[in-house]
């Protein structure tokens, strides 16, 4: 079953809408190389059985992904990934950027930084490089 490829984890306390969480999780799975072009996304029924969310929300998230040109709905068959978001830079444990970040994270830990400090640092630097309006 393709449902084994990706499973949505809906965090009800996050404040992020279910619809956004699904969109983000699909994109993340695509970036991390967990979803390839040709893979079928879980059907609304499969998602509902696993997480008790509204199937309309799942379909709405898929429509959004389709609008962005990432997936394609095929009548009667399901929704399929059409594009690849993964690149050499993000795939696998040995991607160079990932190795650099791993090294940085190790130094932060040795330096006695708490997880909150790391998150704050990361967000601050990220926001510097990717201003809010660009991300939205």
């Amino acid at each position, binding site marked *: 079953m393709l449902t084994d490829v990706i499973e949505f984890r*809906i965090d*009800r306390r996050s*404040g992020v*809408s*279910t*619809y956004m969480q699904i969109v983000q999780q699909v994109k993340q799975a695509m970036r991390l190389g967990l979803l390839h072009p040709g893979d079928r996304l879980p*059907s*609304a*029924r499969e998602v*509902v*059985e696993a997480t*008790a*969310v*509204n*199937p*309309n*929300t799942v379909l*709405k998230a898929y429509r959004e992904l389709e609008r962005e040109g990432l997936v394609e709905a095929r009548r009667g068959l399901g929704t399929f990934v059409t594009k690849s978001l993964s690149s050499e830079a993000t795939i696998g444990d040995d991607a160079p950027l990932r190795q650099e970040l791993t090294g940085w994270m190790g130094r932060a830990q040795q330096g006695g930084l708490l997880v909150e400090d790391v998150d704050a640092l990361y967000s601050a630097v990220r926001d510097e490089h990717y201003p809010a309006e660009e991300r939205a």
Partner: protein
Amino acid sequence: MNPLTATAVGKRYRTRWAVRDCSFAIPEGKVVALVGPNGAGKSTLLRMAAGLVRPTTGELRTFDTPVNGRIHPDVSFLAQNRSLYRDLTVRELTRAVAAMNDRWSADRVREVLGLLAGVDYDAKVGTLSAGALTQVAIAMALGRLPRLLLLDEPLSDLDPLARDETLRIIMTEVADRGTTVVMSSHLLSDLREVCDHILLIDGGRVQVDGDIEEVLARHRILVGPVAEESTVEGTLVSATRTERQATLLLREARPAPEGWAGTEPDLESLVMGYLRASRERRSSA
């Protein structure tokens, strides 16, 4: 064709109006959260839609047919107290309810009862846990193959696991058959994640009605200095004020003026704002 429409519906019990001048239309395929505090009129509204209670004024229509003391063949109703024959076994109950219906899918009932842990067919209905009882009641409702499912407090009295399982059964029905669902709760948090449409009732009147995303997009929460409240443009729904700071919930708001911070409200604060406004209107009336 809307599964459910209300036109100026009111219901009076002796001197008290339980529902007053309610008008709305539920679009097909929506999962509607009917929310409001206890005694807001949610149950009365659902019971009127199911043909159990006759409105004092106005008219309710299900699938474009006036509800006239009888439930529409395409509508199923789950009562808050579950109203099942407790002295029968699950098997006997299934047979009894099937006999009361022209259209009945024994397969659908078996499927729903088989979901999750499954229900023991030979257990007396009265001995079932609250969760299993709700599962049986929903199975009976779905055996009618409804296109509109009216659920009165489907999650009350349920522990978190049973709550999740009940929602899963309902959402599976929506995924499988595109059924329109209207479910009531006095706890918004119960329904927040599974509904895409909100119908907020208080004091027997509709306070908010619409697609949740659209409703949220139409509103703004503005925080700023009390002294400069007059510079804010939009329809004020409700406000809380301290000595210096005002927090305003606005409908159709213009962009926030200088010195004010504006955000889109989350559903909880929107509902709280409307309930506060409704309470103030009633206490001043």
